[in-house]
């Protein structure tokens, strides 16, 4: 019987609203501090989610090189591979 896969975790939605009525230097200060706090919590949430995933989920696909063309070749048997000279370093 097929099982329902759990939904992937999502970062919590953080709503921080600046105080609309706050004006002047103090209002600006509060508004900037709230913005900074929201950014901080969003970063933390994303970091925690990234770390909570299994390493397999963060696997990657190797990036292919760019196709650059083709060349016509005729293969020629150049002999069996021979060992390279091996020098002793005494």
């Amino acid at each position, binding site marked *: 019987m097929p099982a329902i896969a759990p939904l992937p975790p999502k970062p919590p939605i953080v709503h921080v609203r600046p105080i609309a009525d706050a004006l002047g230097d103090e209002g600006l200060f509060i508004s900037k501090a709230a913005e900074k706090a929201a950014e901080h919590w969003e970063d933390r949430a994303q*970091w925690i989610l*990234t770390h909570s995933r299994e390493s397999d989920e963060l696997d*990657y696909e190797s990036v292919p090189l760019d196709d650059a063309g083709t060349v*016509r070749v005729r*293969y020629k048997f150049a002999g069996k591979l021979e060992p390279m000279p091996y020098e002793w370093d005494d």
Partner: protein
Amino acid sequence: MTPFWIAHQGPDLAQGDLLPDCLVPTFDPQFGESGDAETVPFERGDLIVVTQSCDLANAKTRFVALCPIFTLERFEAFNSNFKTKGVWEEVRKGRREGLHMLAGTDEPENNRRALIVDFRQIYSLPFEYLSSRAAEIETRWRLQSPFVEHFSQAFARFFMRVGLPSAIPPFK
């Protein structure tokens, strides 16, 4: 910030040499069997040398091992999960198997200009081809010490890893 790269000129090769636009032929599984002329496709990519410098300097190898190197943008185009905040930081700290991050050749302090080496893809190209390719490039980039040793160690750690059939359960 100590630069990762130094500008270099000439045909000599060393571990950590960045060689842009190298051509890599890809062979059909039946290549060479017919005896007739065949069409071989080739790809172009930026590669970094992983063969040890001492082997290259003493001409102890006919073929040179290289890994592909990409910009973050190019890598993200194929791996959108790497756009998630925190993933590149894991790579930067050397915690992502198979990947190694190097500072960009220009703007090294801008981490978005960093470069990513994929150790899973290893190409082997003839020494003479790479040497002539290196000579063609007016000024190229060479990874300098101790960054080249750090890079070499990361490659060695990846290559020597051992997969176990089972593991001790993690402590949570």
